[in-house]
């Protein structure tokens, strides 16, 4: 009897704490949204919300790689939505081989960073790439979106980042 009871409690616990969010609980975002890097309200970039991409990537021109305490670090800067130049110094956690549409492989440095869209913040792996020939500074892929967001591509800029 107590076994039955503890099993029931476990099932209820798993259900309430770990059940996947229903559609009603997920936030709807458009295909373009403002994202706050490091959750800072003044570190805003325009991000393309891309259900066709596995991972997220960030514009980084002039990457400077250096060594610190035996790890490889990267220093890069980007221009925020308001035109301010901000500099990042992050540890490179790995390099990723990205398959391009033309079949070529491209090696990219991957860092870990907090990204906030709407009221949801996640620490995600972001690969760094020169996106200067693209319109948007950031691309948000499914690994960020999964479980918390639905994408309505008819909309854009539906939420303001607020993760303080």
């Amino acid at each position, binding site marked *: 009897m107590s076994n039955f009871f503890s099993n029931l409690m476990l099932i209820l616990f798993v259900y309430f704490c770990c059940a996947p969010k229903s559609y009603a609980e997920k936030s709807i975002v458009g*295909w373009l949204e403002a994202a706050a890097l490091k959750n800072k309200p003044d570190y805003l970039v325009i991000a393309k919300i891309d259900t066709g991409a596995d991972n997220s990537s960030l514009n980084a021109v002039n990457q400077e790689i250096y060594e610190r305490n035996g790890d490889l670090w990267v220093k890069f800067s980007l221009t925020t939505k308001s035109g301010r130049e901000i500099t990042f110094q992050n540890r490179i956690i790995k390099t990723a081989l990205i398959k391009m549409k*033309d079949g070529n492989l491209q090696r990219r440095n991957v860092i870990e960073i907090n990204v906030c869209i709407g009221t949801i913040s996640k620490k995600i792996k972001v690969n760094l790439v020169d996106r200067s020939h693209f319109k948007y500074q950031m691309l948000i892929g499914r690994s960020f979106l999964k479980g918390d967001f639905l994408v309505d591509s008819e909309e854009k800029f539906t939420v303001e980042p607020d993760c303080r």
Partner: protein
Amino acid sequence: MTKKKIMVGWREWVSLPELGINRIKAKIDTGAKTSALHAFDVKLKTEGNKRIAVFKIHPHQDDLDTVINCTAEVFDERTVTDSGGHKEKRLVILTPIKICNKTIKCEVTLTDRDTMMFRMLVGRTTLNPYFTVDPQESYLAQPDLNERDV
């Protein structure tokens, strides 16, 4: 945003009835503006004052033996930029697509990029204004199309 939209996953089985494609796996891609179809042996011919595209497609991802011959009127010709930033001139056709029991006429560009993992990409102009994408899900639509019959 109050409109009730049809929920689709990031991968779906769709059909293109006028091209004779009953079932093709498509990537639902909010990062792409227009939909694209991987076609090969694309030829152009003229019938009266119409331009007709004649092309072939392999509807299944790892099967190069199955070939479907398609014909469609050319609707436009457009320069598109792919995710790698490359520009390419592509033919555009206008054809009905069935996603989740909803049939809509959509613009599809023809590309011969052999490296596309998916033979079909469904972009924003096809998704609007009927669909919302759940990036966590796959194959929410058309259970009849999920069965293995071609």
